């Protein structure tokens, strides 16, 4: 919503500067997003204070002055105006400034005297035709102050962010009403310059059909148009608008079209009531019929586009065909043109939801539809029509043909609500006296009747405030009108909440810390993927058809991110993500799960001058990463990494259930890129099932005595006895897993085995084909005494016997 400072001032006279008014509107009403000076061409003009003025030595009509323009030094300025006087202020354009009209001032010598700028006349500033002398300013503003703000010259446009619940603010009338309440200044409707006609004939009221002069008006769709007013004006002369009207429209960014259309536009911005003028000559059968469109009915709208209508849409038709789409846009056939003589002026209230559906169906949004779909004031059309007639007669001539019609089959009574003074205090946190409540709400048009005996009010809601329905809405009005800044910011005691910290969040934070410590970088990409019809959740109305699905796994989107990095010539990539994945599931609801995944490729560590180039990440790094994630996701749980197939290197089981995998990741990668590896683990299902039926709750029991989690760390007594250790190297067939050998080692070594570490794997010429040598390091310790070397050597021998006996695995001999 654009509003003009001058226009608002015509409703409420305030002495506020534009910035002060902006802040007031923002604080009490709706946020002013922007403030535009409409005389930006004067932005470089400042207040100049003439300290000295003396005759020019080489000229008898020039003056040499010394001007304070706030720069900290006095400027020499040559001036040709007879009225220049020391001790007065004038608009000053410093050298370098551009005057309205485009003249750029430069420092120059005038008859031998240097001039650093120019003292300006009204005409030079585009403020009138007076060029008899420079413009003497009646102000005390400091030298150097911008001229426009010091003098209030030039209108200011406010760009106001009106929220969808406040259509009453989509007009100067509405904003002015709020300014009047906030500044406690009276409000009046502005005089229309040049308007002398006062509209006298009362409208004739009926439910469905009436004649407005020679035109028959019929309301067949009262649901789409709860109120329909119209009037015929004959003998208008279409032409251009007077300057004041054009200027008003320009002040809100609207373009002048012709006097009649401009008049209706003026009223749209002034009162928030959209109107439309039809050329009576183009209305077949001199009829205006408000009805539903027929199926596939066509209409060329004012913008020249042919529209196909449907029976859900309300149209304004003549006896033959649609001539306009109700509340959205008129038709081009009955448009007011230079040839128009007689007009039918429509001032109506259209149903918000119906206009909204039509606007969306046609993809056609206008100033009118914007206001109608938010809701216009159903009591406004009679006053707006009277004002419109006055204005049109004033700017386009003509005369009213018969009385206006007012088809209003079901007049609406104003809504009411009860307001309790105690509820105001409960919600706002400060007691507000009943008298203050009454003053506040009546200041914007509510009517209050105090209940006898208790402290509450019956409040009548004005017709333009459809957003106010219940007590709580009135309490918002009170808070807003009193000013949010009037409420204290005292931190008061609070009770701690009943909701336990989310266990899922705890896990996710632990995982994130672990992966960051491992040197990984957190990504937060979008979940949209190219997907496929089967197995993926599809977005019904996707933003891009090539990314219409939701990911099933994080490694999908992480891969795209890795490819992006490769395209940026980044060869070392270590990304992780914590996020949701989606599966169609088998019910109506998609199955959503929180996952953690990491993707690595490139150097295992940064290069260092002491070392050869770092090896690249390999499957063992990926496995360790998988283990890291698994430990963080399910600490203390039993996890197993089972060899997988194909690109899947390992599947990850936690407590016997498959929860993730470690795998090679194929990327669309350049030749120089290293192999990528990924690990992904499912953390928890996120269910969207309803918690309880609407309007009810189903409280969870908050477990008070949760037994300590199994992963809780318990201190183990430090050993007091020395350990003993030995290595073994055995030949293991390629098809036997190291895991199997380890199991046998543990079984044979017994309980004193403290630690078993795989040291190395060796394949080579000295090793039998199909075999490899694997070496382990074993550490033994007895908790109470030193193990004798004999005990150790006998264990070693027993171990080798077991391996050979059970697995056929022998010690490697040199």
């Amino acid at each position, binding site marked *: 919503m654009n509003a003009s400072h001058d226009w608002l001032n015509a409703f409420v006279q305030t002495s506020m500067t534009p910035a002060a008014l902006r802040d007031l509107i*923002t*604080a009490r009403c709706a946020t002013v997003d922007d403030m535009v000076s409409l005389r930006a061409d004067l932005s470089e003009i400042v207040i100049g204070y003439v300290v000295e003025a003396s005759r020019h030595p080489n000229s008898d009509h020039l003056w040499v002055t010394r001007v304070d323009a706030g720069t900290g030094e006095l400027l020499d300025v040559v001036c040709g105006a007879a009225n220049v006087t020391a001790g007065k202020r004038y608009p000053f354009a410093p050298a370098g400034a551009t005057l309205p009209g485009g003249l750029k001032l430069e420092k120059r010598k005038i008859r031998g005297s240097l001039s650093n700028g120019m003292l300006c006349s009204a005409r030079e500033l585009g403020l009138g035709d007076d060029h008899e002398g420079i413009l003497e300013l009646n102000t005390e503003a400091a030298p150097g102050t911008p001229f426009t703000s010091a003098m209030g010259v030039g209108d200011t446009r406010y760009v106001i962010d009106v*929220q969808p*619940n*406040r259509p009453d603010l989509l007009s100067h009338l509405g904003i002015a009403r709020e300014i009047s309440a906030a500044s406690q200044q009276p409000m009046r409707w502005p005089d229309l310059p040049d308007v002398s006609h006062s509209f006298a004939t009362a409208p004739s009221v009926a439910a469905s059909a009436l004649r407005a002069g020679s035109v028959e008006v019929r309301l067949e769709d009262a649901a789409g148009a709860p109120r329909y007013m119209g009037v015929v004006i004959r003998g208008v002369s279409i032409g251009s608008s007077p300057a004041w009207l054009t200027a008003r429209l320009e002040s809100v960014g609207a373009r002048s079209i012709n006097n009649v259309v401009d008049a209706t536009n003026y009223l749209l911005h002034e009162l928030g009531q959209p109107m439309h003028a039809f050329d009576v000559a183009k209305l077949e059968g001199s009829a205006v019929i408000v009805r539903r469109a027929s199926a596939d009915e066509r209409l060329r709208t004012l913008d020249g586009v042919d529209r196909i209508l449907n029976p859900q849409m309300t149209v304004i038709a003549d006896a033959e065909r649609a001539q306009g789409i109700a509340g959205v846009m008129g038709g081009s056939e009955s448009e007011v043109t230079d040839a128009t003589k007689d007009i039918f002026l429509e001032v109506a209230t259209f149903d918000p*939801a119906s206009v*909204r559906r039509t606007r969306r169906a046609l993809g056609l949004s206008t100033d009118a539809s914007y206001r109608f779909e938010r809701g216009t004031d159903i009591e406004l059309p009679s006053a707006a029509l009277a004002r419109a007639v006055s204005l049109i007669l004033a700017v386009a001539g003509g005369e009213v043909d018969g009385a206006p019609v007012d088809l209003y089959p079901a007049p609406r009574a104003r809504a009411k609500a009860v307001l309790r003074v105690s509820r105001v205090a409960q919600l706002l*946190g*400060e007691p507000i006296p009943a008298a203050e409540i009454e003053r506040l709400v009546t200041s914007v048009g509510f009517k209050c009747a105090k209940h006898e005996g208790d402290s509450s009010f019956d409040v009548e809601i004005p017709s333009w405030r459809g957003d106010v329905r*219940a007590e709580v809405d009135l309490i*918002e009005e009170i*808070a807003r009108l009193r000013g*949010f*800044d009037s409420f*204290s*910011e005292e*931190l*008061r005691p*609070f*009770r701690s*909440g*009943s*909701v336990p*910290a989310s266990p899922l969040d705890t896990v996710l934070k632990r995982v994130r810390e672990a992966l960051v410590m491992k040197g*990984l*970088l*957190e*990504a*937060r990409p979008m*979940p*949209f993927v190219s997907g496929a019809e089967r197995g993926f*959740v599809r*977005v*019904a*109305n*996707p933003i891009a058809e090539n990314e219409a699905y939701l990911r099933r796994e994080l490694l999908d989107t992480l891969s795209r991110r890795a490819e*992006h990095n490769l395209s*940026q010539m980044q060869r*070392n*990539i*270590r*990304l992780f993500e914590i996020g*949701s994945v*989606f599966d169609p599931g088998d019910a*109506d609801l*998609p199955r*959503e799960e929180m996952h953690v995944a990491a993707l690595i490729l490139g150097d295992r*560590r940064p290069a260092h001058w002491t070392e050869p180039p770092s090896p690249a990440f390999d499957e063992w790094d990926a496995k360790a990463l998988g283990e890291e994630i698994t430990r963080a996701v399910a600490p203390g749980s039993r996890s197993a990494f089972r060899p997988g197939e194909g690109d899947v290197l390992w599947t990850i089981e936690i407590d016997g259930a498959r929860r993730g995998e470690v795998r090679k990741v194929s990327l669309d990668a350049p030749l120089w890129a290293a192999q990528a590896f990924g690990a992904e683990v499912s953390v928890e299902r*996120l*269910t*969207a099932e*309803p*918690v*309880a039926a*609407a*309007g009810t*709750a*189903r*409280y969870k029991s908050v477990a008070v005595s949760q037994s300590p989690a199994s992963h809780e760390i318990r201190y183990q007594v430090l050993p007091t006895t020395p350990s003993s250790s030995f290595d073994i190297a055995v030949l293991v067939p390629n098809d036997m897993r190291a895991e199997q050998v380890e199991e046998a080692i543990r079984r044979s070594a017994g309980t004193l085995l403290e630690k078993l570490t795989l040291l190395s794997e060796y394949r080579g010429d000295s090793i039998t084909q199909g075999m490899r040598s694997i070496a382990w390091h074993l550490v033994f310790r007895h908790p109470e005494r030193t193990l004798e*070397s004999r005990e150790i050597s006998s264990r070693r021998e027993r171990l080798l016997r077991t391996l050979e006996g059970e697995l056929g695995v022998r010690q490697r001999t040199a």
Partner: protein
Amino acid sequence: MTTQEFFEALQRAHVEGSARISAAATPLELTDVRNALIGRKNGSLSQLMRELPSLPEADRREAGARANSARVAIEEELETRKVSLDADTPPQPTLDLSMPGRQSWRGAKHPVTLIIEEIEGIFRDIGFTIALGPEAELEWYNFGALNFPADHPAMDMHDTLYLGKEVLLRTHTSPVQVRTLQSYPPPIRILAPGNVYRRDFFDASHAPMFSQIEGLAVDEGVSFVDLKATLSYFANRLFGKTKTRFRPSYFPFTEPSAEMDVECQLCSGRGCSGCKGTGWMEILGSGMVHPAVLQSAGVDAERYTGWAFGMGPGRMAMLRYGIPNIRLLYDSDVRFLEQFAR
């Protein structure tokens, strides 16, 4: 010395010896260790060997064999350590200490995560806990329960991505309010971070998915004063000492609704092009929970009142770290992410 004492001393000497061998850091140290263990004169093992004749005749053979195998083992360990020390020791003894140290890869949290954690930290201090909810959400939780009017322009601000009939990608984190109120009785003090979706096309400041963080406090006697006080406290913690300003706004699920501004971080409130000359910067939307929302969740709206707020950590991250384009938050360029390593 009894035989038993001899065996124990022998074991001790072996174990200690092994430890000293692995602790030796240079070939020179290793030579010292060698002398201390098996040096002819003072080596601890050599001294023990000299005790052999004093043992009972019957035990001497056994004792000798053990002492000998311990010596052989020690010698092997010495040899192994020598080989590895020779390989480890850099040839030149003087180090240029200005050379750079050995690095490992540095990880980093996403800037949006950093902001979320900062916000969570502040609210945790005043008794809030974290609650999470699904991103694929039921329409009722996203709109109906939150008092959104059907066929109303309020819906235009929530251009929605649908997954099916009555299932959508949540357009805000506010559904978590309703789910929480249905799951736990008041008093409620929760913070709900998460991803939300809008059918917005990418530009410098909009993306179809972004993060949001929601707060909710419901109890008896909770009022607009609590809202203002808590959110101002929060702003002063997050931005340092700052003025705050509350402006009228509209959200279907709060009444009254207010947006909170802090002094513009770019110009400290003096007014600049970043804040369009106002000196203020919008930080969050808030309001008193609409009674209809409490009723949707089965809460007695006459007895309990509440306030809620929501804000965009992405926008705050852009502000805090001077990130000019929202796309950088999603691209996951490692050169971008590495800048947030600490």
